[in-house]
């Protein structure tokens, strides 16, 4: 004997509190639930509900048990087991040569700039990790690079405020979007897979950057533009997302890092941060002509 079904608004509340993995699973409960799960309104609700919980994206793997797919895990900072996996739709982009996961790490001290993880360091870490028995079983079948990610995952969780986990799609270490190529990074924004695309006016000046978010979980064509920032003359590049929701921007002054909150409030964090008033953000989907063409180019190349 089943009583009245719960209204859809209530289901939005309940499902909004769950991790992505459960949401995708529960799409199989019935057709009505399936509709809820892929409803962009629901995804918005979910993003808002999750904004305070500090789940973050951390892990990439290729091959292994998931049959050669590229997946991202988002990990709750208190519990490694409570993870959710998001399939990255543009697998071709990730399978390109010289791909690397790049963790930007900022220590918040004067003179100490943003660190990117060099290859040599990765190798050392891998060796350290291979000597540890505990994770060997877990890691069998994964590519060696991933081991370092596990290591870094711990570091990131310990130091969440300061580390900007992101996946840069770049050909070599020099390329930070120079040469007019847009710089593309995958990041986690409010527990949702997001993509930062930085466009450059000339080799040094970032023209603007757009944040795309995957609106329907597990659906490749649901990427939509959430924010557009710029044009800004004083910003050198966009570093990533901190605290699961704030953008961190690098200005020309090497000591000057600016965090930028989605709600348009700039605030100071650490040393030598100057609040900027000249940043512009627009929500929703609004593509200028030129930006659109760049995005088309991007789609043709990598999506």
């Amino acid at each position: 004997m089943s009583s009245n079904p719960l209204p859809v608004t209530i289901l939005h509340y309940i499902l909004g509190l769950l991790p992505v993995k459960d949401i995708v699973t529960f799409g199989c409960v019935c057709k009505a639930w399936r509709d809820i799960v892929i409803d962009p309104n629901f995804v918005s609700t979910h993003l808002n509900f999750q904004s305070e919980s500090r789940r973050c994206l951390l892990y990439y793997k290729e091959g292994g048990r998931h049959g050669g797919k590229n997946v991202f895990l988002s990990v709750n900072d208190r519990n490694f087991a409570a993870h959710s996996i998001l399939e990255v739709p543009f697998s071709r982009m990730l399978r390109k040569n010289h791909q690397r996961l790049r963790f930007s790490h900022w220590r918040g001290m004067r003179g100490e700039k943003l660190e990117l993880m060099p290859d040599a360091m990765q190798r050392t870490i891998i060796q350290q990790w291979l000597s540890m028995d505990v994770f060997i079983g877990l890691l069998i079948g994964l590519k060696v690079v991933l081991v370092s990610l596990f290591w870094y995952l711990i570091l990131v969780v310990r130091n969440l405020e300061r580390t900007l986990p992101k996946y840069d799609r770049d050909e070599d270490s020099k390329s930070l979007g120079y040469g007019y190529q847009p710089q593309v990074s995958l990041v986690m924004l409010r527990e949702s897979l997001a993509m930062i695309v930085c466009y450059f006016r000339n080799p040094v000046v970032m023209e603007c950057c757009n944040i795309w978010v995957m609106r329907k979980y597990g659906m490749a064509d649901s990427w939509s533009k959430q924010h557009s920032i710029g044009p800004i003359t004083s910003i050198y590049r966009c570093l990533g997302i901190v605290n699961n929701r704030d953008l961190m921007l690098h200005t020309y002054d090497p000591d000057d890092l600016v965090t930028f909150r989605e709600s348009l409030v700039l605030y100071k964090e650490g040393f030598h941060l100057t609040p900027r008033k000249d940043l512009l953000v627009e929500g929703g989907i609004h593509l200028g002509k030129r930006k659109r063409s760049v995005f088309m180019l991007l789609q043709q190349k990598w999506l």
Partner: protein
Amino acid sequence: MSSSIASSSSSSSSSSKKEKKISLKTSDGEVFEVEEPVAMQLEIVRSFFADNEDVTEQTVMPLPNVSTAAMHGILEYCRAHEEFRRRMPEAAPEEEVRAFEAGYVDRKSNEELKEMILAANYLNISKLLDFLTGVAAKRIENKSVEYVRAFFGVENDFTPEEEANLRREYEWAFEGVDED
């Protein structure tokens, strides 16, 4: 008319010897006599009394969507919160509230929980609704699809092929699900 409402509310707050009661009638006909501050936590009751000028203290407010069992549970919660507020009007004693809430919800079965969510939604008690939906989410987190169907009493309207396709498509999400 508005002055009489103001005076009655001020007299009720000043005279504590006899508390004002509000009568609420559930779907199965039982009438609950509820203390005014507790009843006012029910948004639907509050607006009923605020909007209708011709209701008196003797008016019995019918609540056709709320069963007696759910009403018992809801009043228990609202009374406890009223008690907390009276003791500490500034800041609620958080630990006590949490201990009460944990004990309170442990005794509820899934079916009771669902019924109370529906009732809390109808009565528009946002605090209780937030709390109960959180509990429901915790109960279904990392559970199997079958468990969730049973929990919510939902019929599976997919054909076996459709369901198999969905499961294949999102295979990764189905790994490591808790035993029911």
